[in-house]
């Protein structure tokens, strides 16, 4: 392994644990279904139960990564960068969506899907800064960005379709990210895996 690969191992580990994106994408889709009040999702308790199940799945996936690929604490600079990135992402989502299409007096009120456009931009920038854009990031989030920016979203508020698009994009990205993760760190349990580890003595 080269110096650069070794130094970026931590960033790759944090960003490319793609299976964690599957429950996250599920939350986007759940939010859309809840807003639409489709079938059983018109009941609040169904929505909360599914959200809880998604949380349990996320914990199980996190445990899978910790057990098979280890744990790390990012450096202080990485943590600060991640914090700033999160604040900027929220600001871009709220500000961008309000600017592109909202009831605000200063909104451009364009016939676009503001959620899809803003979230795709956030994802592209986030991956570009974090681990560098891979082909699947450009294809998936480029497609969501283009779909959202097409001036065909007239009429009713397209936010829920935007949530569905983003949810599908997050899940798809996660599948490909996990593939890259396994290529980088090896398949689960491929190393001399143990119950815990060997002490350094």
């Amino acid at each position, binding site marked *: 392994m080269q110096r650069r690969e*070794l130094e970026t191992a931590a960033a790759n580990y944090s960003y490319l644990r793609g299976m964690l994106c599957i429950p996250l994408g599920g939350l986007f889709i759940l939010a859309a279904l809840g807003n639409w009040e489709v079938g059983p999702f018109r009941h609040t308790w169904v929505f909360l139960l599914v959200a809880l199940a998604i949380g349990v799945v996320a914990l199980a996936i996190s445990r899978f990564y910790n057990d098979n690929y*280890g744990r790390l604490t990012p450096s202080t600079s990485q943590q600060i960068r991640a914090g700033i990135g999160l604040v900027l992402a929220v600001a871009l989502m709220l500000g961008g969506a309000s600017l592109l299409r909202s009831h605000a007096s200063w909104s451009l009120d364009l016939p676009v899907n503001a959620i899809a456009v803003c979230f795709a931009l956030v994802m592209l920038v986030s991956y570009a800064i974090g681990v560098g854009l891979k082909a699947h990031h450009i294809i998936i989030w480029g497609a969501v960005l283009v779909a959202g920016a097409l001036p065909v979203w007239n009429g009713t508020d397209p936010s829920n379709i935007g949530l569905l698009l983003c949810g599908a994009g997050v899940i798809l990205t996660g599948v490909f990210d996990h593939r890259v993760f396994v290529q980088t760190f090896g398949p689960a349990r491929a190393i001399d895996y143990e119950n*815990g580890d060997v002490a350094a003595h």
Partner: protein
Amino acid sequence: MSQLTEELVLDRLIHEPGRLAILTVLSSVTDADFVFLQRATGLTKGNLSSHLSKLEEAGLVAIDKRFVRKKPNTNVSLTAEGRRRIAAHWEQLERLKRLSETVAPDQAHTPS
């Protein structure tokens, strides 16, 4: 030994590929556990354990043995000295690389 040669001496403890890999990974994080280091460096469990022992004896890493969900877990971090030494080592390697790049073209013109 001339002053120039002394300046270009590499830290033998760090220059071993396994230990260099461990310290380089640790230089990019606050701390990491044994399994992550094994994944990131590709070392076997025995090799990693042996290298960590040497690095701990030299005061370059701090090892914290703990239990996570009732399983033993070894957490490793660089000491301040370790952080300084790995940064200096990479700087030294860069200097050697630059030097070899400037010397090599000169030697190409040296008559045999």
